[in-house]
């Protein structure tokens, strides 16, 4: 339903906005990762593209970082949906966004 989609989108933007930028605190990072993973896996495949397109360049880079973090710690069904997020994020961010996941000094 459109209301559910709207909520998922809002949760997504909130998670992106409130991502702890410069923290080294592992507990904070884990919590943020967990929240983001929950939000990403709550999306239907058809809703992903719209969500990615609503981000700016920095947002896409941040999303890509969380996607790869999600790959690092897979849960039962997470990889499938994360691959779909990866495909859409790659289409917008290009290989450069993946390069910046690899070169980032500050990880998510």
């Amino acid at each position, binding site marked *: 339903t459109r209301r559910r989609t709207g909520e998922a989108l809002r949760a997504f933007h909130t998670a992106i906005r409130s991502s702890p930028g410069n923290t080294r605190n592992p507990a904070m990072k884990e919590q943020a990762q967990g929240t983001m993973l929950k939000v990403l896996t709550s999306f239907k495949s058809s809703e992903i593209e719209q969500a990615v397109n609503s981000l700016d*360049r920095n947002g896409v*880079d941040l999303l890509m970082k969380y996607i790869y973090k999600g790959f690092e710690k897979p849960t039962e069904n997470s990889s499938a949906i994360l691959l779909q997020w990866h495909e859409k994020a790659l289409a917008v961010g*290009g*290989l*450069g966004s993946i*390069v*910046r996941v690899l*070169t980032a*000094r500050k990880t998510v």
Partner: protein
Amino acid sequence: MAYHSFLLEPISCHAWNKDRTQIALCPNNHEVHIYRKDGAKWSKIHELKEHNGQVTGIDWAPESNRLVTCGTDRNAYVWTLKGNVWKPTLVILRINRAARCVKWSPKENKFAVGSGSRLISICYFEQENDWWVCKHIKKPIRSTVLSLDWHPNNVLLAAGSCDFKCRIFSAYIKEVEERPSPTPWGSKMPFGELMFESSSSCGWVHSICFSASGSRVAWVSHDSTLCLADAGKKMAVASLCTETLPLLAVTFITENSLVAAGHDCCPMLFTYEDSQGALTFGGKLDVPKQSSQRGLTARERFQNLDKKASSDTANATLDTLHKNSISQISVLTGGKDKCSQFCTTGMDGGMSIWDVKVRNPCGPLRLG
């Protein structure tokens, strides 16, 4: 646009003579080969053999016609043409790691060498001793210096380093020049003075370039970003996170436009918007070849699906002119303010010359 395949191995570095009839390049070994243009062909006319390690940088002084080369053997040589023979003069750089890049200053009375010794050697000729001597710029460089570019005032030097920073130093040598007048980068320029330092990007700075006026400096980093510092805006830095693989070479072609190239094997245009202080991507400059659309058999479709999880043939081969990463760009005609032609060399052993067309002074640039 013209492409010439010189080698089957990477061209490590290249430099052009003043009238662009000769190109000096390192064919991925310890030598420098000079080729001359003979109509449509290129003929090798000289082989310069003196280095004991790979030649990592070549620069050709347009007025004095001297070559300077540097290599992993920790040496630099200044070459002078005597009759039909290039004669080398050793320059002691006093470094204990490989030299990585070298550039003549605009007045050709100095040259700078960046090295793995985490410093820059500024070399000048001492008349009394008939000998090249060098001074070191060390602080606060923390890693290998990968690229250098001189400001038109012959004093300021931009350096890109593996410590992720772009810096501008003064390389003022009182023995060979007058005190420089103030510039937008500062007024006091004693030797070694740090005039500008970028905040860390997240990648090695592969290439750095001053604009023709010297009031802007741009650099490309291994984190797939392009950055520009504008002295006219109090050294504000604009940066662009590109969608491409890391860029390895960059040059200004007008005061507001740049061409960069790297691991995506094709040159790309970038524009600096003065009023906003923003960099934007202007498109790839390569002309894509028409890919042949042939039908796939069912077996081929299945094999593609198995191997690549996709059943179309797109991107099976590179449709760019260079078939491997481009590692260097040089301006051929027009200078850095009105470039009408530039040259790229790469790891595919090829050299390509590109024409730039300006449709109108304020309009977008196109590839001709």
